[in-house]
């Protein structure tokens, strides 16, 4: 349970036409204080053992999630299962290259997830652009736009690599390091500026609740 902090000023939502501003929440994201001690460790354990990932294949890497879900690699045994809506998911697997168009959806979905939330970036493209290093519409590193907890290199990485990535993520969460949500809120202006630099037709609120 976190204490209530001072509430940040509402967002301007300048990307929206005035008549639409009333339709979207304009609250800014806040940092949420973690609980303390053993209780937080227990909760972190629970979070790490119940990783619900957003079933949103943002790129070609999403193809690797299928063998992972099914009998060959069976991620369920690690408490990982897909959820169809960001509201209920806690892990966002960025499935490889992200074009500007996709990035917009990634940001929106990420912001719609409830915290604590974790991002697992899959494939070289998310790290440094990979084979799309000179593309006119593919971003080269995802961590400029949303906080990333674990990268998995490769083009494609094998499902085993993904499993290893999940194990690493679990370790990070258990150690209390999975604070991407708070990082995002803390550096919100920076992230937002980066996002707006590449997403030219910003027609959504500044934070998608």
């Amino acid at each position, binding site marked *: 349970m976190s204490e209530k902090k001072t509430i940040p000023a509402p967002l301007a939502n300048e990307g929206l036409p005035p008549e639409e501003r009333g339709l979207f929440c304009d609250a800014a994201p806040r940092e949420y204080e973690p609980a303390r001690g053993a209780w937080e460790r227990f909760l972190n354990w629970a979070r790490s053992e119940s990783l619900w990932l957003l079933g949103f294949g943002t790129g070609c890497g999403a193809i690797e999630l299928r063998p992972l879900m099914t009998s060959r690699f069976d991620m369920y045994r690690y408490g990982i299962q897909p959820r169809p809506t960001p509201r*209920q998911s806690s892990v966002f697997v960025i499935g490889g290259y992200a074009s500007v168009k996709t990035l917009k959806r990634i940001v929106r979905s990420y912001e719609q997830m409830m915290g*604590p939330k974790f991002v697992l970036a899959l494939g070289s493209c998310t790290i440094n652009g990979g084979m799309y290093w000179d593309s006119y519409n593919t971003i080269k590193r995802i961590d400029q736009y949303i906080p990333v907890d674990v990268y998995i290199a490769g083009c494609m990485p094998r499902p085993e690599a993904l499993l290893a990535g999940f194990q690493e993520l679990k370790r990070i969460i258990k150690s209390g390091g999975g604070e991407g949500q708070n990082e995002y809120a803390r550096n919100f202006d920076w992230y937002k500026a980066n996002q707006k630099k590449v997403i030219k037709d910003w027609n959504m609120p500044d934070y998608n609740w």
Partner: protein
Amino acid sequence: MEPTIIGRIGYAFVSLFVITNYGLLLIGSMARISAKVQGRVGQPVWQPYIDIVKSSAKRNSIGHGAMFYLGPVFRLAGGVGTYMFIPAVFGSVLFRNFSDSGDLLLVMYFIFFGQLGMALGAGEGGHPYSAIGVSRGLAQMTAFEVPFALSVIAVAAQYGTLDINAIVAAQQGGFAHWTLATNPLAVIAAIVAFLGMSGHNPFSVVIAPQEIPIGPPTEYQSNLLGMLQTNRAIFNGAKLVLYMNLYFGGATNIVAMVIKTFLIYFVNVFVGQAFPRLRTDQSIRFFLGAPTLVGIASVIIAVI
């Protein structure tokens, strides 16, 4: 010995605690059984517990309005209430719950309490998929209620009572007295209806995860989702206990209850693993076809 009112409340809590844990474990074990069918190892049996803890431990949440928050409350209260109106173990004071509030009809209608509240809460979420899911769910509900109602009527006609305790009492004395043995058609109709009621395949179009992201609760998250998950355990338990009482001779002790309900649920999961999903109109037509005829036949058998 008639317990005091305080005692009854205490018993009710114990009973509720038992059914909650049992329901959660049941869900966990069924998920594992499904995994085995698919050639997987499957999640741990206690995974539902972790999920609920995780959901409840989310650090923030969003709300669309008062009714949105009340939806899960209605849902959980509906589940708990339904259970409270059913005697879980025959002859046991501990598991008698508050079944003296009303008979079978009360239970059958109280099932709607949670569904209605949930539908309203989901509606206030403002998400069209919620409404689509509710629309499908209600439409399907009207259909599977027909064989269920027929089979309940057959039971009531057969035993001449609507009192659940009396129905269970009438089935005591061995397998031959169970409704399963005396009126198997009623049981068939009821079990088919149960498939629809529990929303497993082939009647899972309500939540259709890939199409309308899990339907009604699509906007629910955090502890609201946790409540829904808890309810799923309790509500399932309540329905299973009801079925056990009506068709499988009830239970005179907790072990019998566990075995019987496990088997009833197992049938359900078994079918779910074997069939693909039907469209809403297909499932409506299905329920109003053969199962309804079987139900009518069961009523005729009961009357004769």
